[in-house]
């Protein structure tokens, strides 16, 4: 297990919902540039991400996020800079909230020292494969943003 992990979340069959997976797949093709880093497609398992980050020093999440920004915007933030306004019914394991999983990880004492979230405002969350043309066109920009984060980490070492 490497000290740093990049985790992509989402469903690739719900258009922009799956943007985190597209970013992680692109990064994984050049993973040799980032020693000490694992790349994980966590898919729809928000609670599974709890295990993927446990015991690491840094976790970087890439996920579709409704942030009130124009569609296509990417924003870097820490869990402490955001508050979830997602309404969970509490009926089912099938709904998930990344910020809750991070809080649980912190309470368990196994959370990485540093957590960074790259939220990407969707243009289309609906049935279908592939990203919207807006997000698809900006995918290189999203990949570059996460790469810059990882490169900075390498330079700090």
């Amino acid at each position: 297990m490497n000290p740093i992990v990049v985790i992509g979340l989402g469903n690739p069959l719900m258009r922009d919902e799956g943007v985190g997976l597209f970013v992680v797949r692109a990064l994984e093709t050049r993973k040799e540039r980032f020693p000490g880093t694992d790349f994980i497609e966590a898919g729809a398992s928000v609670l599974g991400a709890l295990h993927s980050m446990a015991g690491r020093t840094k976790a970087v999440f890439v996920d579709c996020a409704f942030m009130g920004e124009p569609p296509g915007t990417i924003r870097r933030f820490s869990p402490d800079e955001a508050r979830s306004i997602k309404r969970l019914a509490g009926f089912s394991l099938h709904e998930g909230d990344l910020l809750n999983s991070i809080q649980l990880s912190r309470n368990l004492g196994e959370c990485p020292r540093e957590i960074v979230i790259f939220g990407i405002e969707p243009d289309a969350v609906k049935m279908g494969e592939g990203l919207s043309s807006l997000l698809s066109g900006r995918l290189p920009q999203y990949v570059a943003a996460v790469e810059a984060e990882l490169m900075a980490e390498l330079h700090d070492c």
Partner: protein
Amino acid sequence: MSKTVDIHVHHITRVEGHGNIRLRAEDGKVLQCEWQVPEAPRFFEAMVLGRSYEDIQTIVSRICGICSVTHTFAAIKAIEDAMGITVSEQCDKLRMLLHYSEQMESHSLHVGYLVAPDLLGVKSVVPLVASHPEVVKKVIKLHRIGNQWMEAIGGRMTHPVTVKPGGFASLPTEKYLRELKATLTECIPDLKAVAEVVLSLAGKLPAFERPTEYVALVDSPRAYSFYHGGIGTTDSDEIVRPQEFERVANEYVSPQSTAKWCKWHRESYMVGALARFNLNAEQLLPLAAATAKMFGLKKGCCNPYMNNVAQVVELVQVIEHSLQLIDELLTAGIKPELAKSTPREGEGAGAVEAPRGILFHRYAFDKKGNCVKANCCIPTNQNHANIQKDFEALVPQFLGESQDDIRLKMEMLVRAYDPCISCSTHFLNVEFV
């Protein structure tokens, strides 16, 4: 004195609806009592049309982040049925082993993350870390073991990539199976500890019974079935072939829901851990049977809240059976058999037990192996009518209680079914502070 009860648990996100509970009562008379649910992931059926038979199971695994292995296997069984493909004994055992990792993950999550907070009077598992750290850590450990086990055999966390028509694209090593055996053996004391905590709280489960029909896979006398066999019911001795699942589900449209509902011999039926227990209890392995006895869970139980207890029993069962399967695989030695298949025109169906109940898939293919028809019937849809009938029987029994207590009992009932609703999107929804 007149008393009004007005409960409206309403959850609609930006993209999907969750289930809603609606109850209105005046002076002890129920005016409206409804379990309202939106359509679940039926739209995925359209997405596989035109796709190759080799890709279907990978696509449908995305239907759900909790039951992805079961969707994979329901699809693969239907594909192999359509193509006339049979698999080796080794492949069959490895598939069961992979399938058990999902039961382990899902049941430990459900009992630990959703049921335990109800029984301990808190809103979620997060505060339990402070108040009950040892049991929460054991639940997390069990969930983590299931997660890593799934990744090791399925090739990826949550959505498996090694399962192909005719076999596996890659195989676990004997070294890994020996390690898994050691891990599973070591986790039995943790499982017992979790079971004892649930037992200490089981008295808080509402005492409510309503006889209904239970439907699950039956493969008697081979094993307590999650993967093999036909469709059994507590209402008759008939075992229906998976190819005829529509004759069991009898899907229909209810005006209070956009999801299809199901019925067979009665106006509703229940699927899930309690249904499997009620149909297969004699086949439980010794430790699992002892766990059922510890809880006083007996065949014929018709308290839906006891589905949670049946899940604890099944956690023990899947570990015991997995240890047996690993021993058998290691004794025979892992042979380097990889998936091979040839497409042909045909139609097939598969039935597999998801943690929350029996799941049916049907596909038809043209001669090139491209999908021309798809139909998925998920366990939660099969349970909707039963939840409604439970509500109708439950509410009058507890109408004298406070509105908050009635609401909690209704919410706990829905949670007891471990439903799969609103599972296709997982985005963040945040405001900055």
